[in-house]
């Protein structure tokens, strides 16, 4: 072994030892550092009850958010089906009158169509928002795990990117809900138009029976 090789070996050995010495238990280095946080068990004996409750609450948040996503998906499906049903029922039904009633009927049908479409868009917006909320809940869970691990000396993580991600998601959630709320305003405006058109159609002697039919 030449001296040069020996030196290289010694340097590597020293750095390796330093790295091992300086790396406490639970440190995640390299690619995983700061991004991947392993699941902390709620039964982990190293954690006090308060920390477990904190984690459990964060997990609950995820479950609740997931449930809201499921509900929103159902609502969307229902809104779509209802829109189709409405379209099927009213198609040609209100345009069979004479004169002014015919025109009013067509307008009312169109408004109903817009109304149903707007409700579908609202349901989609709400679904997007709750999905964002789910992502946020997951990020918060990760944050809670990382912070708890750090607090109770179970592991060390780069908390900053996790917290930043949570903040970003918070803004995204806020934006998504804002969009949904805006769409709600659109729906309500459309509803006003629908019933205005419906009233006009009725006042002109239009028959509304098709609305009550079963498709």
């Amino acid at each position: 072994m030449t001296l040069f090789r020996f030196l290289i070996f010694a340097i590597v050995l020293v750095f390796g030892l330093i790295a091992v010495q300086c790396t406490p238990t639970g440190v995640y280095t390299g690619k995983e550092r700061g991004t991947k946080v392993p699941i902390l068990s709620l039964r982990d004996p190293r954690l006090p009850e308060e920390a477990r409750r904190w984690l459990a609450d964060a997990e609950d948040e995820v479950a609740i958010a997931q449930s809201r996503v499921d509900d929103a998906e159902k609502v969307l499906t229902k809104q779509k089906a209802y829109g189709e049903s409405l379209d099927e029922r009213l198609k040609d039904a209100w345009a069979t009158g004479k004169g002014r009633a015919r025109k009013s009927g067509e307008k009312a049908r169109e408004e109903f169509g817009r109304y149903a479409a707007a409700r579908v868009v609202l349901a989609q917006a709400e679904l997007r928002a709750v999905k964002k909320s789910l992502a946020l809940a997951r990020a918060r869970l990760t944050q809670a795990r990382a912070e708890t691990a750090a607090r109770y000396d179970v592991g060390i993580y780069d908390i900053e990117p996790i917290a930043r991600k949570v903040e970003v998601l918070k803004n995204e959630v806020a934006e998504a809900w804002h969009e949904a709320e805006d769409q709600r305003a659109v729906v309500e405006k459309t509803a006003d138009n629908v019933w205005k058109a419906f009233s006009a159609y009725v006042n002109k002697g239009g028959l509304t029976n098709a609305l009550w039919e079963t498709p």
Partner: protein
Amino acid sequence: MHRLKVKKVVRLIGVLLVLSVMQPACVQKKPVVRDQLTVEKLRLRITKVRNAVAETRAVIAASRGASHLPELYMRLAELLSEEARYHYMVAYEREQRSTKSLHVPQVRFLKEQAISTYNLILKKYPSTHLADRILFNISHEQRELGLFDKMKDTLQRLVKDYPNSSYKAEALLVLGDFYFDRTKFAKAEHYYVEIVKQKRSPLKGLAYYKLAWVYVNISDCQGALRNFEKAIIADRKAFTDFKKKRRAQTRKSKEVQGEFAIPQFDKGKYSFAGHKSVNVQREALVDLTYCYAQERKPEKAVAYLKRLASTRESYVAALAKMANRYALIEQPKGTAQVARELLRLAPDDEERLDDARMLHNAVVRMKDYSAVGEDVPLILRAMRRQLLKPKLDESAKVLLLKEFELLARDLATKSHQLLMRRGKRGFGGTQWTKNPVSADQTATAYTAYLNVLPESPNRLEMVGNLADVLMDSKRYLEAGHRYRETAFLLSKPVTDAEVEALNAPPKDTEKKKRRRKTKPKPKIDKKTLQQQRTRARVDALYNAAVAYQHSLESEHARGHMERATARAGMRMAGGQYLEEGKPDKEKARNIKFAIAQSYYDEGSYLEAIDLLTAIAYEYPKSQQGDAAVHMVLDSYSVINDMSGLINVGRRFLTDGSPVAGRIKSQISPIVQAAEQRRLDELSLAASGDQAGGMAVLLSFADRYQDSELGERAMLSAFVAARAGGDTEQVYALGEQVVNRFPRSNQVSGVVSTMGRTAATRFEFDRSIQYLERAASISPDEKATLLLTAGEIREQLADTRGAEKNYRQALRAAGPGTGRAEAATHLADLIERTGTPKEVVRNLTPLADPPDPEILSRLGLALLRVGKQEEAEEYFRQVTEGAAAASSAAQARASYGMAEIMLHILETYEPPPEIDAVEELIGIIEVVLQSYLAAARQPDATYSQAALARLARAAEVGAEKLETIVLPADLTEEERDLITVALANRANQLRADSGEALKECARRAKASYLFDGAGKACVKGETPRQDPVQYRPLSPRNKATALAHAESARERLSRNPDDLDALRIVGKAFLDAGDAHAARLVLDRTVEAGGGADDLNLLGVASYKSGDVLGALAAFGRAKDAGSSAAVRNLAVVCKELGLSGFVQEILEGAPAKVDGVLLEKAKSISVLPKRGEK
């Protein structure tokens, strides 16, 4: 591979071919074995019996004198009798069983041989135990030979000679039968009665049965019935006993007996007599029907027979006979009941058809359709079972079907007619029947009809009828289904056959024909029929919808399935009705409302909301329209869509809305409550940790920006931002509220909150600005807000601004506490910053009404300008109303009174009289006591000043006593005594003065209160003047911007007790040179739990802002808490005050290492070693 398979297949085919060729060779024709002829069998038996006879004869011949000879003869006689029977049977068979009266010589010969053999036994062995049996056998042979008189004699001999014989009953029975056959019923009765008198006899039941028949024949039906019943009971008992015995015997016997073997002990009893074949129970039951029909009530017949019957077969047989009997005597009630039971239980033979017909006739005749729901299914079942029989040809089937369809339809429709008539007349009407028809029964009848005859040409009418009946019986769901079925049937196109059938002449009786001649039925064409059906279909659909609606309304307790079905049916029927019919407005409204309600009840609110809203718009001011409005709102409420509820509610409440005014007033509070609820929800979400809540709330506020709801939303958003510590939002939203809703009564609150938020963040100037703005908006809060603003200004050395605020507050405050508070603030400010003259000038107008805070300050100011009398008056007022005065006011008053007394003492020039000496001594005591009273007050400043002035008062008193001029008329001795006493008292006073000074110095050092009094005491000087003086703050050096403090301020917005943030902001102010602001922040830091360094910093800030006393107190506390920097800082300040001795005390033993912020002058101070240390 493929080739191999082919080879295998070829081989297999070859084998099969060979086998098929060989097969015919192996097969043989089986011989046909026929059954033997009966005659041949009998002949064989004759041969066997003959052999037996020959053999018996041989044995008899070989057994002369043997004891068993009677048995051998007995056996021989019986064999002969048996052979005779076989001969008779051969003859009977030969005659093709055509007659039983035959002339067969062999039989007579053999029987006579048998009789002679029996007689031989009786003659040879008269005491044989076989005698009774022999006699019975003889009688039997005699009866078969037609020798009835001889038979009678033989039997009577048996009965007479052998009363205990087991053959006695048989004999009596035969005798009874003998007379019965000859219609000698009295004699027959005698013999039968003899049997039944016996205690235990297997023939008892039969005897009763025979006896019953005797009574039948003598027309005593009651007696007959009684005996039939006894016959059944006795036979049942005998059979039970027999079974018990057999079981017991079986248990005793070790051998397992054959299934049909007769136990030994009864063998003789049961193997003859010919009565075994009579099933007494069955026959008696069947035969009693005749008398029962005559004597007893028909409605109890079925129960009676059922009770007596032991088997289903006998029960059915009896029922059949009973039915026939009732039919014969035309008793419809009994016929109906029995026929029903027969149709229920009897086997499926053709007789059931008759039973069904019988039932129909009986029911129609009685007009009792109370059981029609059972009758029709029974009748149809009988028909269907016959139809299933393969032997029935098609034409017969058609006829049967036609006939029974008519019967079933007849019963169902007649019951329906009766039901309708009852419905018209009511239950208490003239149509009274014992068994009223029920709708349920009729419905069941129709249902059975429709189930069994699905292809009936009358199905349409029957379904319609059924639907009506179901409605009548409140079975609404089923009624709805049937109405829909009717509608479906009516939707089918009319066929030519149907038109023809309708126009065909009715097949009526002559009578009906004659009646019809008067009003001929008009013919109907296909088109008209089709139109009629279309109208009927629409009616059916409407009825269906109504039925479903009734179902939903009345049967809430039913299961989910039923409710769901009813709703679905309602929508289908209602929708079709609206689509096809041209309903009048009321019907259409009802149907539409019912459909919408079905969605509402189902929980499908999406659909319900639209449909109900449509009803509200289409039928305004109607009952349904009004209800729909409420239901729409409720739907939104249930799905917690407050936004939707608000929107629709507002739409309903607008001027152009079709909703009635009465309803508007009802829904208005609902909408308002929803608005509040929605707002609460959004506010909750916005103030919580949920992201996006604020965005939604702001969006909501934007949407309703021109309304009160928008205002409330903005306020909620503002509150949420405040709670969340989002200061930028607080300021922005606050400004929006103020600008958008300037007339809102919440504006002042918003602005004041903004002011307080700014104060929390130590944005003092902004805070003052908002507070003053809020004060200008809200008259109610004006005084308080201005006082707060004034306090901040005062602390920031803006004396003028503070005074202005306080004066404004004083003007704004009403009488009472508010005014007093404002006055106190103003008085305190003027006292601290003005001269005594200014104080007197400013506070004199505030003295009315009297306020201890004002009066005490005013008194001191008057004292300082030399107006003791006026001052005394104010102090007196304070001390008299001490209970209402604060401790500070009391301290001031006590101190002021003491000062007045000291002034009196100082200015007192006693005349040379002995009384003047006493008066001087008294004045000195009063002065000292006054200062002691003031020193006991909890106010540190005036307490300390009182101690200092106490020392001065004692000194003055001593001087006065020492320099007093005694009266000239005293003796030398008196003069000496008084002089010594006065000197002693003066000495005492000087000692007291020293003590007071020491105490004062101790207190000053302990509390680091080195004001005028404290400073003098520490120096060991007695203050010659009032030592209480105030030093104003130095002018403020206002910081324009703070470096690196913004995030700390944000943190303080969320948590005002955040120590780190407080320190950061305090240091930032100090670094920026704004010591006044820093002093306030650091004071808050200490209050929030800050440590020695924070106290030291507070001292530095106080010192720099001119608050020397504050700085001393802060440094002192910091020093006590261990701050090394505070020691030096305290030393610097004390040195400036001229307390060099105390400085030495402080620096003695102080640590050399300094940790903390130092005043500029403190950096050059060196510490001293502790005493004793080098």
